[in-house]
């Protein structure tokens, strides 16, 4: 008998001698074995745990849950979403290789590609349209990268379309803001990356990330033979094997067991939170739209059709409104009583942040334009509070004097 993901999120696969229903917290840095067994585990001949930087029972229970969510062949947890993207990029790229990335990706990822990977001879080419993507695929392309919903561009990527154009390249997607309402594998994604800090945890008490291999890409493809090194002989598991044993183990971006426990706690309520956040966001976006504010939300944008196709009737929990100037945006944010000014996303709490002076502050003018960042742009991530409280909070902020003058 198989159970729905909503049920399996509440009932993780737990191995515990005392019958615990939740993942036991193994805080151990290392695990003892007899000499032969330790040698076998070290050399991949036996199952077991040795050192928490590479694998830990609590972390593995989290990996199992994230993998279950995506119907993948395996997942690996990282210390943050950026650690996850860094490790995947370094595995798939080498000098003279190119990343083909959606133009509106998150500033941290943009900086990784442009400011760090470029130092190692990796070039990033950005695309907006299918034509641009097709035109730029070459023998040097290492992978295609996009976010399901761009932040803060709120651009919705058509994953099925990208998959139809990728040829023999892996399609790597960041699905941080759309877990549960979106299944990347069924749309043709090969690798799915999460910042687990956001919707997976939801409670704002953890920083974490994860990578899922959907099992759809043939890693025996010679393109990655050098990168996969000894693990190229692991067949369809080669990517996960190399990612864990080289790029998790040796770059060191491992997740702590305590944090894995925190993410697992959040994931039990994921199905409820995602839908409630999305419903609240749609309610607020409707309200902003009625007020004739310049709101950017998939329901009202050119991405509606793609969102309708991919997200099961939801439009996500993030949006932006453009209030025209930094001064107005600051006044608006400081007038909010319930919603918080914090740089996080997809938390149970609603958050509003001035994009240009915070999450986009490291970008130049062209990069800001690519991400849709204007001086008056406020990004709003909607939580699970009472929707009428949220509406009244934003209405109150909109009614402050400075806005009456300028809107």
């Amino acid at each position, binding site marked *: 008998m198989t159970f729905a993901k909503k049920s399996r999120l509440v009932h993780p696969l737990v191995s515990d001698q005392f019958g615990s229903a939740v993942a036991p917290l193994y805080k151990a840095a290392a695990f003892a074995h007899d000499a032969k067994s330790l040698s076998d585990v070290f050399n*991949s001949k036996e199952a077991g745990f*040795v050192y928490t*930087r*590479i*694998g830990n029972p609590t972390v593995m229970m989290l990996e199992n849950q994230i993998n279950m969510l995506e119907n993948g062949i395996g*997942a690996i947890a990282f210390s943050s979403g950026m650690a996850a993207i860094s490790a995947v990029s370094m595995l798939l790229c080498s000098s003279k290789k190119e990343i083909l990335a959606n133009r509106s990706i998150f500033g941290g990822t943009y900086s990784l590609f442009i400011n760090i990977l470029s130092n190692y001879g990796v070039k990033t080419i950005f695309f907006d349209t299918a034509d641009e993507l097709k035109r730029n695929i070459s023998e040097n392309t290492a992978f295609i990268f996009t976010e399901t919903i761009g932040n803060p561009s709120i651009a919705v990527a058509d994953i099925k379309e990208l998959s139809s154009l990728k040829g023999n390249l892996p399609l790597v997607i960041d699905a941080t803001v759309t877990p549960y309402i979106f299944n990347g594998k069924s749309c043709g994604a090969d690798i799915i990356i999460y910042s687990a800090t956001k919707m997976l945890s939801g409670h704002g008490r953890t920083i974490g990330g994860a990578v899922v291999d959907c099992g759809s890409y043939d890693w025996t493809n010679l393109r990655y033979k050098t990168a996969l090194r000894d693990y190229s002989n692991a*067949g369809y*598991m080669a990517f996960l*094997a190399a990612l864990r044993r080289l790029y998790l183990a040796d770059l060191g971006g491992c997740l702590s067991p305590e944090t894995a426990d925190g993410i697992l706690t959040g994931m039990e309520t994921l199905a409820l939170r995602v839908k409630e956040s999305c419903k609240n966001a749609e309610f607020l976006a409707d309200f902003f739209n009625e007020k004739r504010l310049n709101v950017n939300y998939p329901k009202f944008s050119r991405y509606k059709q793609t969102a309708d196709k991919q997200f099961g009737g939801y439009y996500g929990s993030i949006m932006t409104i453009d209030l025209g100037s930094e001064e107005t945006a600051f006044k608006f944010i400081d007038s909010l009583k319930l919603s918080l000014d914090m740089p996080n996303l997809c938390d149970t709490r609603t958050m509003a942040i001035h994009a240009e002076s915070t999450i986009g502050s490291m970008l130049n003018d062209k990069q800001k334009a690519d991400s849709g960042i204007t001086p008056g742009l406020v990004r709003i991530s909607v939580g699970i509070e009472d929707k009428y409280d949220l509406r009244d909070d934003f209405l109150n902020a909109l009614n402050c004097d400075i806005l009456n003058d300028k809107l």
Partner: protein
Amino acid sequence: MNLIINGKEESLAGNGLSVSKLLILKNVKFPQMVSVQLNGEFVKQENYDISTIKENDNIEFLYFMGGGR
């Protein structure tokens, strides 16, 4: 049933074991952490239940759990 698992001869009770059952017998709680080769051919996870092991089969488990250098 006599098998060769990771180069070692082993004798297991029962005939017609699936790869899934063999993983349970070998105490592998997280099958996404291992690749399985049956007589030199990789077995995909979705086929673990339907892949049957026969007398004298050669099975290679490659685990990606522990390790380090």
